[in-house]
């Protein structure tokens, strides 16, 4: 009976690990690209151009001149768009393929690597600052703004942690990345679940207007509110379960529900609301990444176990 040599085993494990890692990085890039397109769609390309919470905070709470606040707001949105282009570019050039250390060492790849690193940092900071500004400005449930959009500013952070990890193998950075993402997804679902339990008006409207526009089931508000109560509790339970377990069914639920709620912006308000759907890509995309990370860690665990078995033999 032919036995696999230790070198072969490590090579196979590395290959599987590397592919999984690539999927994680690509997924994250795609999510952030879409998110950046959503930001540009909402703040730059919309016929009825809008301003972010950062603008409103600077203008109304800090008394910054409208021109300065507008300039900063537009600059933020344009830089997010530029960041999105950087991620899209890197998606095709794959500077982190196989060996992240190598990517950091090669001249132009090294430049792209740092561009991506800076771009991810900017998107994370911009999204976080927006949530912080929302919190500071007040408004209904504004105190929950950071938790509500946690997954949006966390995906770029996770990307930074993953592409910045020094070792081919799992290390503290990647473990931290998984935990950061898990907590962010949970926070996002818990806040949305809480708002659903509180029968948040706009959530009711998403269902009722989607019904009016598309499904025409003539839903009544009390029925919608009952559904929201159920959905809200389910969201919270799933979010908590996500922290302590790794059941695929939880990830599948969160992925599908994240997708449905993102898409509901368009079903309720029409195609013109596409930026509202696209900007929420991380709500479901983050779950995809997390599930892939689980797989990544299990591949790594199995490959390590195989290697140890072979070496023991």
């Amino acid at each position, binding site marked *: 009976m032919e036995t696999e040599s230790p070198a072969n085993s490590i090579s196979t494990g590395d290959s599987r690990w590397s592919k999984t890692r690539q999927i994680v990085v690509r997924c994250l890039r795609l999510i952030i690209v879409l998110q950046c397109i959503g930001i540009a769609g909402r703040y730059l390309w919309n016929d*009825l*151009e809008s301003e972010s919470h950062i603008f409103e905070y600077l203008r109304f709470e800090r008394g910054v001149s409208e021109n300065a606040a507008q300039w900063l707001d537009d600059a933020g949105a344009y830089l997010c768009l530029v960041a999105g282009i950087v991620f899209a570019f890197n998606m095709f050039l794959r500077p982190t393929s196989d060996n992240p250390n190598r990517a950091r060492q090669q001249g132009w790849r090294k430049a792209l690597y740092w561009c991506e690193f800076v771009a991810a940092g900017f998107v994370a900071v911009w999204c976080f600052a927006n949530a912080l500004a929302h919190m500071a400005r*007040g*408004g209904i449930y504004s105190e929950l703004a950071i938790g509500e959009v946690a997954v949006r500013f966390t995906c770029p952070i996770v990307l930074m942690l993953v592409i910045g990890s020094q070792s081919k193998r799992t290390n503290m950075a990647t473990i931290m990345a998984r935990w950061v993402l898990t907590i962010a997804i949970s926070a996002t679902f818990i806040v949305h679940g809480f708002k659903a339990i509180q029968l948040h008006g*706009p959530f009711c*409207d998403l269902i009722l*207007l989607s019904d009016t526009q598309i499904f025409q089931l003539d839903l009544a*508000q009390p029925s919608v509110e009952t559904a929201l109560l159920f959905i809200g509790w389910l969201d919270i339970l799933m979010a908590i379960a996500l922290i302590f377990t790794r059941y695929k069914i939880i990830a599948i639920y969160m992925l599908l529900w994240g997708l449905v709620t993102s898409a509901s912006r368009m079903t309720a308000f029409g195609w013109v609301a596409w930026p509202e759907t696209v900007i929420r890509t991380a709500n479901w995309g983050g779950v995809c990444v997390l599930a892939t990370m689980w797989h990544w860690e299990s591949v790594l665990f199995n490959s390590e176990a195989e290697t140890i078995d072979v070496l023991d033999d």
Partner: protein
Amino acid sequence: MFWLTLIPLKTLFYYNQHMHTSKILSTPSSWIVVLLLASLNGSILNGSSNWGKEAELKGTQPAHFRVTWTADPSQQATISWSTAKQASKGLLRYRVKGSTEKFATLAAETGKYIGGEVELYYYHARMKDLEASTAYEFQIFSDQHKSKPMYFVTAPNDDRPLSIFSGGDSRTDREERRRVNTMLAQMVHDSHANKAPQDDIIALAHGGDYIVKGTNLEQWAEWMSANELTIGPTGRMLPIIPTRGNHDGGKIYNNVFGLDSDNKNYYGVNLSSEVRLVTLNTEISTAGSQKKWLVEELESSRPKNRWLIAQYHRPAYPAVKTPGTALQSWVPTFEKYNVDLVCENDGHTIKRTVPIRGNVKDPSGVVYIGEGGLGVPPRKPKPDRWYLQAPGLASSGSHIFIITCESEKLTCKCVELNGKIADEFSLKPRDLKKEVLKKNTKANKKKEAAPAAHAP
């Protein structure tokens, strides 16, 4: 004495509006006269009549006086006030102004404002079975303290002409808010000082966003204090018809306006036998029960009223930002029932849209005005939006709209804080028979089936 000072000041104000200020105020002597008159005027406002400044909130001493109209204002009103410590008794004594009849006594409902780090107590005296278009003088008694005498006038129940203020967003700039309130008090006073009945301002339809954070009682306390500046020089109170804004979340709002804790903040009131004002709440579901209520409300009130006006906070046709859900939820209903005028807020701009029906300009459509400027930093509007083209407009600055309803026309005038008229237009009463026919046109059917879609 007050009149002696008011007349020359008003004359100066008039000249200020119609001539170059520099010409009037170019000589030192004219400045001396102005300063003398201004100081005299101020001393009278703040001294002898004691109006024009806020009551002190201390112990069980009553302050934060306000009158709220949320149900039939020709017969009912809620008089509210606050104290810092809970009074063992809070009473309202009232009678028809100028009469010799005995004062009626009304015990106020009391409770602690919910939430916030500050501890304050509210009192609501609910006056019922009042006479229409009648001045009621009242005084508040709180333990050993009593307020100054004040009065308010109930809404008419006949078809007399009247005016109301419409405006919102008084949340951030506290000094500006105080200046606007002082201006409102003077405008109400002036409107009743002449013999023309149509300009008599009877209430303020407030479009929401009173303060920054609805759960912050300290901010509400400041707003309630500043609201006292709307009390006129003779002690006349300006009733508020409140709307909830996106910054007014939380339970304090209902405490402030004397509403039950589960009140959803949408209602309709008749300001006369022919003027109906419908207040809606954009901060809860707009498409569910509220829409159902709106359809029933407009279906019943449209045939009975010459003028049908709606107010709410987040605009369907904004001068900045993106439309709220009102666009999908309510606009088709407004068009179906031919609402005359819609007052919107939130944008911190000044706007008037073209008449809109089916998301296009249509002479028979609905005009949307407002956007809020009662004490907030203004914003630059986006005048390139199709619905803000002439005869619509977009501008910015602290302002108030005065809506005058008469039998022949509804006039809407936007007055800025400096007295400048930013906009003025009038609408003719709808020929409802024609409108019903128009409602059945193909375009309108299409519109009802698929309302205009915009991002939320």
